[in-house]
């Protein structure tokens, strides 16, 4: 990524240079904790109570278990959460850990939103509903996390081979649009996924062709593709989906419960009662991770992304590897777009609202590793979901301001990372054989 070009190995003095920043991140975490303590803890009044429920909305009829409602003192729960946040802040300030600072920051952000929900849903609070459904929160955010994981996996494929794919957002849009059309007409999500992959792969091919053949700036080509797809999908939406709404409806992918496992309280609905897209995502994470770090293919891909000339001298076809990876990466993002559409039920112009870019942030946060990208996507998914749902709790803050939250967190997290993580050395640099 261009934005983290000034990077370095974490050597002792470098670490010292980072300590100032680590300390200020710790201070911010502490301030958030303090605010939570005063506003949502002490500030919610000692008599107020909040309820947590655990019963999945869509499984309630068929599950054999029914976990009762947990009613908590809002003030005390939030005080405990706030103290946990402050403890993390203190730990960061005292130990100045070299790694994992931003993960701790992400945890504080998630705790903050959770605490805010409890505060809003307390008795006498502003929310029209007076409970928080933890299972629904986890299931809802898992859908977002899944889309982010598809996106960041796409990024891993491309950037490990040395091509920056900033067009993930565009591949999401393309996948979502054709996915809805195919799913509506064939009622088959496998067809939809295949066509989504083709569209994503085609966009990857365009990116690869322009940046590998004509050595165009990859960032610019990527942004142009996103802009083009945004406008094109709006236009086609107006021309096709508005007059023929039957081509863009009823596309919620069915949940495929895994026998027995799906019935585990809390974990079951989150992990084992998901759509096919969710299970496919898990398989892809495992495949890409195994492929990159355990196989001959992966060694060659990483060599191409780190030192393409060295790869050339041992007979590896750099350009060929890059084409394949960018096209496959595009296809993965395309399926991600279909998955997003299938979690929303239909296509709407502009509704990916920058998820593709957040996926890129998750990729950096996850240090260009599939496993890291999963952790990052889960944190980002939770905070995006919680921030989105603050609106239903009628928090007395303008919705537009609430809508900024996920992006503010993304900026905070990624800027906190700059200088700490090292992208593939040849990432984004066009390669020419002499």
């Amino acid at each position, binding site marked *: 990524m261009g934005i983290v070009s000034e990077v370095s190995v974490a*050597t002792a*003095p470098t670490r010292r240079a980072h300590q100032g920043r680590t300390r200020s991140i710790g201070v911010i975490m502490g301030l958030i904790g303090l605010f939570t303590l005063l506003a949502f803890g002490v500030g919610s009044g000692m008599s107020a109570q909040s309820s947590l429920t655990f019963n999945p909305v869509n499984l309630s009829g068929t599950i054999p278990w029914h976990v009762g409602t947990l009613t908590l003192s809002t003030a005390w729960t939030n005080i405990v959460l706030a103290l946990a946040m402050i403890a993390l802040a203190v730990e960061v300030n005292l130990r100045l850990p070299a790694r994992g600072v931003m993960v701790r920051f992400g945890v504080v952000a998630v705790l903050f939103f959770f605490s805010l929900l409890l505060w809003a849903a307390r008795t006498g609070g502003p929310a029209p509903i007076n409970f928080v459904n933890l299972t629904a929160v986890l299931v809802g955010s898992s859908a977002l996390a899944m889309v982010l994981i598809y996106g960041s996996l796409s990024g891993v494929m491309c950037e490990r081979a040395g091509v920056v794919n900033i067009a993930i957002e565009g591949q999401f849009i393309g996948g979502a649009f054709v996915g809805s059309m195919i799913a509506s007409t064939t009622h088959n999500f496998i067809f939809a996924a295949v066509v989504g992959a083709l569209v994503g792969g085609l966009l990857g091919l365009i990116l690869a062709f322009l940046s590998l053949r004509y050595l165009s700036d990859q960032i610019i080509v990527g942004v142009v593709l996103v802009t083009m797809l945004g406008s094109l999908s709006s236009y086609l939406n107006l021309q096709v989906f508005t007059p023929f709404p039957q081509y863009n409806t009823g596309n919620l992918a069915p949940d495929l419960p895994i026998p027995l496992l799906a019935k585990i309280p809390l974990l079951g609905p989150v992990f084992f009662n998901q759509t096919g897209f969710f299970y496919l995502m898990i398989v892809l994470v495992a495949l890409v991770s195994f492929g990159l770090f355990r*196989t*001959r293919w992966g060694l060659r891909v990483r*060599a191409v992304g780190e030192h393409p000339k060295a790869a*050339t001298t041992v*007979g590896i076809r750099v350009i060929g590897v890059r084409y394949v990876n960018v096209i496959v990466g595009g296809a993965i993002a395309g399926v991600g777009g279909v998955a997003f559409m299938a979690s929303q039920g239909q296509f709407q112009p502009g509704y990916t609202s920058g998820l593709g870019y957040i996926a890129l942030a998750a990729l950096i946060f996850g240090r260009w590793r599939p496993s890291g990208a999963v952790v990052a996507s889960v944190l980002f998914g939770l905070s995006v979901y919680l921030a989105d749902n603050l609106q239903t709790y009628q928090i007395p803050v303008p919705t537009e301001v609430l809508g900024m939250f996920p992006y503010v967190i993304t900026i905070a997290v990624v800027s906190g990372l700059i200088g700490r993580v090292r992208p593939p050395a040849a990432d984004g640099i066009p390669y020419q*054989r*002499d």
Partner: protein
Amino acid sequence: MRLELRGITKRFGSFTANHRIDLTVEPGQIHCLLGENGAGKSTLMNVLFGLLQPDEGEILIDGEAVHFTNSGEAVRRGIGMVHQHFMLVPVFTVAENVVLGFEPVKSFGRLDRNRAREEIRHVSQTYNLEVDPDAVIEELPVGIQQRVEILKALNHNAELLILDEPTAVLTPQEIDALMEIMRSLAASGKSILFITHKLKEVKAIADVITVIRQGEVVGTAQPTDSEGDLAALMVGRSVNLTVEKEDVTPGEVALEITDLVVRDDRGLPAVDGLSLSVRAGEIVALAGVQGNGQTELVEAIAGMRPVESGSIRLRGRDVTNATPREVLDAGLGHVPEDRQLHGLVLSMSVADNLVLNTPRRAPFARRGSRNLGAVAQNAGELVQRFDIRTTSIQSPVASLSGGNQQKVIVARELSRPLSFLVASQPTRGLDVGSIEYVHRQIVDERNGGLGVLIVSSELDEVLALGDRIAVMHKGKITGVVDPSTSRETIGLMMTGAHAEES
């Protein structure tokens, strides 16, 4: 392996980089390819290694014509190459680098790391080149990285080893070790093609010497021929390899550096408590292996890099952490290490580059507008005085050869009143003729009473120019010695040994 090149021609557009080159390397032979920078050595090697395709001519291995479309094919036919800039992935381990492209695999395309380690241990033992297969490349010293490059070639069963300017980054001791490796490889029957422009090395190791100039073979020579003869063949005319210096009594201290600490881009202290003084009318040459803080030291003097602690004084005036403008105003002449990055604006004309550090001053500018007549007049004079070969003073400086680009910088820096001159790698990449010229200019300035600090990774240059030689290692001066000191001693000091110990 017997390698024969017949009539190899390679053109880039209208430029002929190699013209009808014939060359034969016999088994067990160390064959030197001698030529100046830009003579076409690297192009020829890239053709031989399959990175480029020749326009004419053929390559024969043991009498059989071969045609390589990529270097993997060359490697399979037993050609191994040790590149000047190592072709190693810094974040990979030794084992991963050595097997890259020829990886042992298990089922499902999984890497067989144990077998890779075994292969490396085997080759290491066979050729007595010890290295830890699990070490990460970027953590290894340069000499060991080069050993990994050689191992990589041998692991692919190379019968012919091409070494492209392999000594540029090595200390004299490492160079000796490399020569030893080359001799033992040749003794075991490998053919070696050794590319260099350093005459001493050629004489020390070659069995046969082929000299190329401007893309053509101009003759063969024997290692017993004198350096002067070799240089004449390489350059095309007789050259003066020694710099004649008159005795000058140094004056007062011109540059004084005290306890200087400067950090590199990674935040590491690259200059670490360095003290050095240079007097007027003397040349101090700073020797050292690249990457020991010389770059950062010069950048700090020139105001291009912040000083963490310590001080720099130019003629008694404190210029610690001064801006480049202030340093220039204090009369510092600076020939930067990377002329294309810091010395010139390539797309601008020769005339503009010649006033790059004084554009706002009279007579080149008045009341904020430029006086182009004065700029052109200045350019005309300097082009003549410094013998800059250009089609016009308005030609972009990018169109000039490396030697003439360097002359533009030298002309610019020396054409105004100076209080001190810092020249970093002043002759890197220049042909012998230009080197002679630049050296003459520097010595003339010193004779005129200027203090000069030369930074060079070429020991020959350091020995030829320096009135005193300061040796730098890991950000510190390990000693200041007389130019009559032996190369071995200076080499030891470059590895950190102090003058009195060695």
